[in-house]
């Protein structure tokens, strides 16, 4: 039997720690299991027993109902994908364009521009001027660009990217490229970009999550059905159900509108989280790796 090293903990405490983590892990995923299970439970069982973790009678009618509105769901998914993809790409380009000059030690204005972006972290005008800027000056109401523009440049990501450049790309590489007569844009795209792929991937992942999960900008700027993202669609569904539940008379008067039931609500949530659940095992590793790169060095 292998001898326990001096600093290793005892077997009983190991078992205890593992037990605690199993409970914590369960707390993290049980709500998701509950939602999935409710969405496939028979409605009448729910009325009798309430929400249970394991459905006693499986019934997929909630999904059948949801798919009668399949056009809006597909449309909303398309909006989310378009906004997320173009937002992430634009954001990476702008972040690199800001981080690269700050990384150049010979650039005499780097202190000024470092402060210029850092100041936006310290102070902001708040929601009201921002809202007026977007709606009155830029006229972005009901425009998808209103969902993209707010998250294009984050000072944190600029700092992380700049630090990554500094620690992984020696000045001599840039100096020799300049001696060879390469232009700045060429150095950025042909030398920096390939050498700094990991930090682009990490920041890209962060930005993707920000865009995909955002619904506040839709709440502020979007009113037309054709521009509703999947998150905002889920928000509106929830709102409509709450309204029906709080105003039974109004719901009865509406008559023809079918009241979305308990199971349909949860099926909506499943449709909304589906892609993240499927993609999660693939990007999770990279995320952990990237987070530690950014955190320790940044």
């Amino acid at each position, binding site marked *: 039997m292998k001898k326990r090293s001096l600093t290793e903990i005892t077997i009983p405490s190991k078992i205890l720690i593992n037990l605690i983590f199993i409970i914590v*892990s369960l707390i993290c995923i049980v709500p998701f299991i509950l939602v999935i299970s409710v969405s496939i439970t028979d409605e009448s069982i729910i009325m009798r027993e*309430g929400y*249970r973790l394991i459905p006693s009678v499986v019934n997929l009618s909630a999904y059948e109902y949801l798919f009668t509105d399949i056009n809006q769901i597909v449309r909303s998914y398309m909006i989310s994908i378009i906004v997320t993809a173009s937002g992430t790409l634009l954001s990476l380009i702008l972040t690199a*364009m800001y981080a690269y000059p700050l990384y150049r030690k010979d650039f005499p204005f780097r202190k000024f521009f470092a402060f210029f972006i850092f100041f936006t972290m310290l102070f902001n005008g708040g929601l009201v*001027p921002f809202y007026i*800027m977007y709606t009155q000056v830029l006229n972005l109401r009901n425009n998808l660009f209103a969902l993209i523009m707010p998250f294009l440049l984050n000072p944190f990501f600029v700092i992380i990217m700049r630090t990554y450049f500094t620690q992984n790309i020696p000045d001599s590489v840039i100096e020799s490229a300049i001696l060879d007569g390469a232009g700045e844009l060429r150095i950025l795209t042909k030398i920096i970009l390939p050498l700094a792929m990991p930090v682009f991937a990490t920041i890209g992942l962060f930005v993707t999550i920000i865009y995909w999960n*955002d619904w506040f900008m839709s709440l502020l700027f979007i009113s037309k059905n054709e521009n509703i993202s999947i998150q905002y669609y889920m928000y509106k569904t929830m709102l409509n159900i709450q309204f029906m539940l709080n105003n039974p008379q109004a719901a009865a008067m509406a008559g023809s509108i079918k009241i979305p039931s308990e199971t349909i609500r949860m099926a909506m949530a499943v449709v909304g989280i589906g892609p993240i659940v499927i993609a999660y095992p693939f990007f999770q590793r990279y995320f952990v790796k990237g987070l530690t790169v950014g955190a320790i060095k940044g």
Partner: protein
Amino acid sequence: MKFKRFKILIRDIKKYKALLLILSPPVIYLIINNYIPMLGVIIAFKEINYSDGILGSPWVGFKNFRFLFATSDAFVITRNTLGYNTAFIIMNIIVPVSIAIALNELRNKWLPRIYQAVMLFPYFISMVVTSYLVLALLSHNNGFFNSALMPFLGKDPVNWYDAPVYWPFFLVAINVWKTAGYTSIIYLASLAGIDPQLYEAIAIDGGGKWAQIRYISIPMLRPIIIVMTLLSIGKIFNSDFGLFFQVPLQSGTLFPVTNVIDTYVYRSLILTNDLGMAAAAGFYQAIVGLILVLTTNTIVKKINPANSLF
């Protein structure tokens, strides 16, 4: 002398015009998206009417602020914002640091990775989805709490969305649930970098596990804990809008414990259309936030310059 400096400036601009050109799109973006709206704080000192526009509208001095602080809302939103953020900051040190230290002790290759992956998952979920998950637990008629947990504990069902007393606990728990896995990764990475010989040295001197944690792990984590806390204190006047607005399903009964500055500004601006109040509350939030960051940073700089942010 001045002329010489000006000449150097011109020379530098010419020499680095390519880099300045690369910088110009993001700089223009910052001017439009951040700097011009900063000037918009003057709205708080004006009585805006749309016929005169922002610049043409009359100045009213501190009238909007007097109205804001005359309401009981000002106290409630300040108390809630500061109270919740303080609780979040404390919990976001205790829970993730404990998770990181415990995971680090397991010395097993794949188990910690699985726990980590599972605990990180809630971080990727939007607040709208979170509101669905919370509803599945708290729904009055059929939610998991009322249909399974409360009968199991031998208690009567509770109408959770109409019971403000429970929400401070719920909101703190939801915040920890969403962020603890994420934050613990950062701490775990710092722990992994600690030289094992340091622990052995304490062990040889007869120090048990607790002594090793107290004298090695925690001191090694201290700088990163301070940085993370400083960043949170800088945002102590801001809140996650979704958590306070959508997770309680905008229930009016819960406003005394869920209304924070961000939700107040939104409601004043969009729902009640009270531009002056919204701008005053927003200005109050921005100024106090700025003062807090500068103060905490100065204090940290005095105690230990290496730990300050700037």
